[in-house]
């Protein structure tokens, strides 16, 4: 009962925030609304007992990405989104049809927490039954991420590392600036 009430409240907030994001033209406000949107999503993940995902969403979605978007906004001059000059009828049609198809697709998704869904019956029973004796780690999520799927996590860390290098190469031009300064002298 309480779960349903919290779900409805959070989803209502989420929808309101989404509509506000579409309506508001000031980009600073939009970024803040994105942050609130992430926080509500994190709340929904907590209700769904996915504490690790909620933690990541709150830290990355509501925290870091908001700061980075604000930093990006500070680089631009125009803080207001331009008003569209024409009505986008064709894109609206495409979005409506795609949305309808997606909603139709949800009828084939197993219901939430269904013990017989494919995701629950593949390797998950093994992880739940054996992760404690295999790794001695109480948090099954950590056991899967760090031990059973350690190879994937290595890949993820490499992706983050590559992202950092990419940003440094694209806009972190401190070395070139120093060189330019020396050239100016």
């Amino acid at each position, binding site marked *: 009962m309480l779960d349903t009430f919290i779900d409805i409240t959070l989803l209502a907030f989420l929808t309101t925030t989404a509509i506000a994001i579409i309506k508001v033209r000031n980009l600073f406000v939009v970024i803040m609304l994105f942050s609130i949107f992430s926080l509500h999503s994190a709340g929904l993940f907590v209700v769904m007992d996915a504490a690790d995902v909620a933690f990541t969403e709150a830290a990355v979605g509501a925290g870091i990405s908001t700061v980075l978007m604000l930093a990006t906004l500070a680089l631009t001059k125009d803080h207001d989104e331009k008003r569209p000059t024409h009505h986008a009828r064709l894109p609206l049609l495409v979005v409506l049809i795609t949305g309808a198809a997606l909603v139709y697709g949800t009828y084939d998704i197993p219901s939430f927490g269904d013990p017989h869904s494919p995701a629950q019956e593949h390797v998950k029973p093994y992880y739940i039954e054996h992760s404690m004796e295999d*790794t001695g780690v109480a948090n099954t999520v950590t056991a899967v*991420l760090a*031990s059973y799927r350690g190879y994937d996590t290595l890949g993820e860390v490499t992706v983050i590392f590559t*992202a950092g290098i990419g940003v440094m190469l694209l806009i972190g031009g401190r070395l070139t600036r120093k060189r330019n300064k020396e050239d100016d002298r």
Partner: protein
Amino acid sequence: MKHNLVLRFITKYLFPVIALFALYVQFHGDYGPGGGFQAGVILSVAFILYAMVFGMETIEQVLPLRVLRILASTGVLIYSGTGIITLLMGGNFLDYDILSLRPIQGQHIGIMVIELGVGITVSAVMLIIFYAFSDRRNHD
């Protein structure tokens, strides 16, 4: 924001709390939610908050970009190095059982070390990205 007394005061006292919480998330990931990735993000948030209030120069004195670049690669090196060590000790890549005489203890060591690698890389990369953006704003 340099002259706002309330912000300066709060930031000064929040910084150690956030950093401590990051360490808690880092080393408590075995038992509660969280792990290296979340801890790295939280630790970088502490530094970003400090930089936003006290200015980039203060933070760059403690963590210059060249240190961050070394840290970012160190994390990946720790992670992949653990894999190489398990290979050299005769196990499979990232097979922590081999790290200690007792497989469970080996798993504990392995998970602790690679989570540390993840945390170091993530916090360094987040700060590198933040530096890249705010540095552009200050100079261009």
